[in-house]
């Protein structure tokens, strides 16, 4: 059995391309799961906006990237059990005295990548609360960060892991001003097409848990994020996601 994994490899450390190879936590983990569960996996790169139609058209079988689970998205696709929980970091220029509070008020210009749950969080929790803040939305994190360095932005919001990677590369230019733990929790998972036949969902759910239990999951995480604390898998499951209703496919109770 060969499954095609759709990947948008511009999201390190979860998915990227190095010398023509798909690397990152998500593809490494899926390769390991495939080996364990006895199926083959082939990767296919395409833009994020195309992944969903591709899944529905059967061009790909699995979405492999740092894919955040939301109830809204769960209406269109099924998610495997979540394997990572991420926080929201506020990044500011290294030489600025902006802190968590001033980043979110007082005429501050804040950048965030569109379509991310970070953006949703900002919209839901800050906008309309009568704070003096303008949100600028970006196609990619990198452009937002570039604008932070130029000074068009006072702060950017992004996933903790990505933020750490960026700061790791440029410690003298950017620093993390603080962290937000959104509620409901932001968790990553793999995505697959909604399907009456839940064989693939079962296999992947089982694979995710077994990978964690075998200890290989921690190895993969540490390969890309040496200092990260590895949480329990599955992590907290957001409410209103159909595929998380018990019994969970492949995991029994």
């Amino acid at each position, binding site marked *: 059995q060969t499954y095609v994994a759709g990947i948008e490899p511009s999201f390190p450390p979860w998915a990227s391309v190095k010398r023509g190879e798909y690397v990152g936590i998500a593809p490494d983990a899926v390769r390991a799961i495939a080996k364990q569960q006895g199926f083959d996996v082939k990767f296919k790169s395409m833009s*994020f*906006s*195309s992944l*969903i*139609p591709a899944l529905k058209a059967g061009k790909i079988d699995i979405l492999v990237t740092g894919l955040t689970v*939301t109830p*809204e*998205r769960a*209406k*269109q*696709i099924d998610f495997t059990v979540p394997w990572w929980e991420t926080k929201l970091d506020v990044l500011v220029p290294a030489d600025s005295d902006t802190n968590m509070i001033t980043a979110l008020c007082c005429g501050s210009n804040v*950048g965030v990548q*569109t*379509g*991310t749950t970070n*953006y*949703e969080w900002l919209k839901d929790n800050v906008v309309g609360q009568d704070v003096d803040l303008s949100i*600028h*939305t*970006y*196609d*990619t994190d990198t*452009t*937002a960060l*570039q*604008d932070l360095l*130029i*000074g*068009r932005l006072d702060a950017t919001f992004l996933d903790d892991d990505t933020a750490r990677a960026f700061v790791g590369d440029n410690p003298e230019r950017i620093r993390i001003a603080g962290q937000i733990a959104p509620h409901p929790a932001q968790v990553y998972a793999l995505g697959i097409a909604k399907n009456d036949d839940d064989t693939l969902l079962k296999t992947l759910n089982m694979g995710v848990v077994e990978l964690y239990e075998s200890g290989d999951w921690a190895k993969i995480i540490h390969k890309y994020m040496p200092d990260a604390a590895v949480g329990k898998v599955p992590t907290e499951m957001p409410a209103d996601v159909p595929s998380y209703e018990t019994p969970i496919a492949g995991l029994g109770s």
Partner: protein
Amino acid sequence: MNAFFVFAWENLPALLDGLQYTVIIWIVAVAFGFVLGLLLAVGRVYGNTPLRWLAIGYIELIRGTPLLAQMFIVYFGLPEVGLVLSPLVAAMVAIGLNTAAYQAEYFRGGIRAIRSGQMAAARAIGMTRGQAIRSIILPQALRIALPQWSNEVILELKYTSVAFAISVPELMGQAKMIGANTFLYFQIFVVAALIYLVLVTLVTAVLDQVEKRYALRH
């Protein structure tokens, strides 16, 4: 199908918000490109050698590189020399500079199609070269270039979507945001496409009228 219309209706306001940016960038950029394009075309045809090569260099450099790269240079590169433009202005400038090169080539084609007697006749009644170019050559060149120039105008309408890369929430960007939220990418793109289609149809209708009104009678 019904669900589609509900979805489209719900998200229409956001798309129309984006449409405002699209239209304003498009109008300013096309107008800016028109003026610069005319100058480039005239420089390339009638200019002295340095001016001609300057125009050729500009046209080939711009046509040879992607708009996205040009936009990044305007947006992220200019601040290096102390010029920080807002995203909207940067988008207008970048797209304007870009379309100018293409428009210049269409105008040049128009100028080349004019019989040399027109210039001679203008000079013969005492016009300077500048006056002749302005009152005799360009009005005709523009009319000749119009059908092909309309390609550029329409193409540019859709190129405004590149502005999303530098955080201008234009029509296509709004559609992408909605798509990312709902994962109904295809549906929202279709709604956006319909808006573009309406716009393009309007623009083409106007240009058709202009073409008919100003057609050169040979």
